[in-house]
């Protein structure tokens, strides 16, 4: 038997046992190749797939600045570029009661903690909320985390409710390129529990 590679001559006699061994070897090699390629494919697919990640924080408000734009509303009612049809759509309930009213702004600063007892600081954040109607506001939030990185979220918040869910629109460093959602709910000690569901 030659130890050199290459196919045996067609006329060369090969014992049945030897043929069986070669056949098994080819099958084994083929199986290894299949498994290798499938594993590589799955790994490659996993690398490109979105991964879900959860993060829970607790926030406590530490500051509030309210911007009352009453004069801008009043001026805008009489001096504006809207046509008559649009001016007829001026909200009828605008400006009565105690507010907040359309166009007003509230800026909140918050401290973040990683536990519900609020003794493990985790960072800080800011909400800037632009009010529209019925105590609803469009809020832009950023959460600057002590571990490095910032999460950015924005969306509508109903100030009549103790909770909200707004989209996470991005992040930096550890959170570079994330999307997702943050669910906020009332927590003990006058805090708010923030459940982040992050996709990358």
């Amino acid at each position, binding site marked *: 038997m030659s130890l050199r590679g290459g196919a045996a001559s067609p006329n060369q006699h090969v014992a049945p046992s030897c043929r069986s061994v070669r056949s098994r070897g080819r099958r084994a090699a083929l199986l290894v190749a299949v498994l290798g390629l499938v594993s590589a494919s799955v790994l490659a697919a996993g690398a490109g797939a979105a991964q879900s990640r959860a993060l829970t924080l607790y926030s406590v408000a530490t500051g509030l600045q309210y911007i009352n734009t009453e004069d801008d509303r009043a001026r805008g009612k009489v001096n504006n570029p809207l046509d008559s049809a649009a001016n007829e759509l001026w909200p009828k309930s605008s400006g009565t009661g105690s507010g907040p009213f359309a166009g007003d702004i509230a800026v909140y600063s918050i401290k973040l903690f990683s536990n519900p007892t609020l003794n493990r600081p985790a960072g800080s954040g800011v909400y800037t909320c632009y009010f529209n109607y019925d105590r609803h506001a469009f809020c832009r939030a950023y959460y600057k985390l002590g571990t490095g990185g910032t999460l950015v979220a924005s969306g509508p918040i109903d100030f009549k409710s103790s909770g909200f869910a707004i*989209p996470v629109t991005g992040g930096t460093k550890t959170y570079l390129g994330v999307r997702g959602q943050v669910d906020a709910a009332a927590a003990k000690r006058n805090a708010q529990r923030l459940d982040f569901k992050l996709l990358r």
Partner: protein
Amino acid sequence: MSRPTSIRFLFAAVALLATTLPVTAASGASRPPQKLTVYAVPATVQFMNHADDRLRGMSANPFNLKADAVIIRTNGKEKGNGPFPGDDILYAFKLFADAKRAKPIGTAMFTCYYGFQKRATCESYFDLARGILLASGQVPFGASRFTLGVTGGTHAYLGALGQVDSRPASGNAQRFDLHMTGLAR
């Protein structure tokens, strides 16, 4: 089929499997792109005139700019009704699933902050039964045809990206085509 041919065939099949698998598995990570068309009817419009803030900002600002220079640069002599930089308009819409507006499906709110040349950066949210969808972008004052970028969503729209195409519809309505990609499963 001869043995070498069958082996080549098998390797070809394996190679084909290897090239298709990543696509199949990756598509499992997010749902296929979706399109949702809604018809919007304006419910309220409110203009915020920040003329006093602009005037105050010309004389008192942290940028070491002379008032005259600011006026020339912005061409902001406040003639006419604007909108001028700093003004904003709130548009509230009722949303319907059909052009006949028989089936209400939610609300939308646009807040448009004006810059120069009566162009605004508008931030909008569509409050739908299955979740919130956010979109923002530039909209010239009075334009009914524009495109916004979808920047996120909640619940059924978790992870959404995409764009919103706006065009006029019959009866003072606006048609919004919401194109969504990257939706989480």
